[in-house]
């Protein structure tokens, strides 16, 4: 009894912690998320680096993929992050990730750059703690 109460309280406290998303976006349904994703992967965000690709300076984040639910199988994915000059004011719709973030990623191809992907909506990352309960419904939509 006491342990279940403690578990309930712990879950309640976890639910109060701020989530990851930081503009204002229109929400997406699961069906829209799946349909509008070129790649759906279970992966961990490793970190980011600024690189020159085809003479263009890009800031790329790297995802280490464990499992691919939709799209071509690959080991890593490069996602384009906003590249801001130093001392540029923060914009409300910029999404940043932290190394070690693990979960389900719903990724779009960057229409301008081959081999590069984008994540431009906070719902495109579902933290590991949340996706387990939603996997059955998502798999149903993927069929």
């Amino acid at each position, binding site marked *: 009894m*006491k342990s279940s*109460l*403690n578990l309930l*309280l712990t879950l*309640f*406290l976890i639910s*109060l*912690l*701020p*989530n990851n*998303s*930081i*503009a*204002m*976006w*229109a*929400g*997406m*349904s699961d069906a829209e998320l799946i349909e509008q994703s070129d790649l759906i992967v279970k992966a961990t965000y490793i970190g980011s680096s600024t690189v020159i690709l085809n003479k263009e300076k890009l800031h790329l984040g790297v995802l280490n993929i464990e499992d691919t639910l939709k799209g071509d199988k690959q080991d890593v994915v490069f996602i384009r992050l*906003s*590249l*801001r*000059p*130093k*001392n*540029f*004011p*923060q*914009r*409300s*719709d910029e999404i940043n990730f932290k190394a070690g973030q693990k979960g389900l990623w719903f990724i779009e191809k960057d229409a*301008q750059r081959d081999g590069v992907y984008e994540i*431009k*909506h*906070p*719902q495109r990352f579902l933290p590991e703690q949340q996706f387990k309960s939603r996997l059955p419904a998502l798999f149903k939509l993927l069929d």
Partner: protein
Amino acid sequence: MEFKTPSLKLITFAIIFTTTTTAHAFSTFNTAWNPGANTARFGGNPAPGGATWSIIGVGISDASGPTDADHAGVTTSLAALNPALDIVSIIDDAFDLWASVSGFTNLGQVADSGVGFGASEAGSASFGDIRIGAIDFDGPGGTLAHGFQPGTEAEFLNGSIAGDIHLDNEEDWGGTFDLAYVLLHEIGHALGLGHSDVPGSVLLPNYPVDSLGVPIPTLAFALTDDDIAGIQSIYGPAVVPLPGAPILFLSALALISFMKRKQTSSTS
């Protein structure tokens, strides 16, 4: 206080933790419209915690240097987002609402000279601290609008884009999304607030939807306790105006009369 069981202790801790967490659920950027820092654009008058605003006209492009494809086009008419609405009044009301609960002062609308957004200030007083315009972002859905954190060129070394607000001109601002609500949200960003996770807050990242996931077309034009705590953490509480001299005089008369009557009744 004595705890009878460990669970009770945990419950008490949970309540304290909950209170603390919800009270600080808002987030802020690290800049604001600070005293003396934002004087370049309105004639050099120091305005502690105040900002002017202006409407970016049509055909204006991004002059802020390397940004991204979101700003590849030029601005379109803000009024055309929903011709049935008086958008200028809505913006003014939104600034006033934030000002009514905090030490921020809405210095009102000023003319906009029409230079590229993010252009160098270069001593120009010809546009507002916060410029608001419409531009194509990403088509319908996705990002509805964005705002930049407050500040000046002196702080960011990258032109005047700090504090500016852009609305996506591809959205259905008439029937799907509440323009006034989104403006209230973005002005919160322009004044220095980040996103909040408190249900009902104007600064939630996603536009509110109903139980079926459909965007609610009309929302309350109001701030929650969390929004108010956030803005007050930056600008302090609202300044309550002192009553005018006639009211003070009448109040004093009423007090004297009350005290005299009390004195008379106690002696009789």
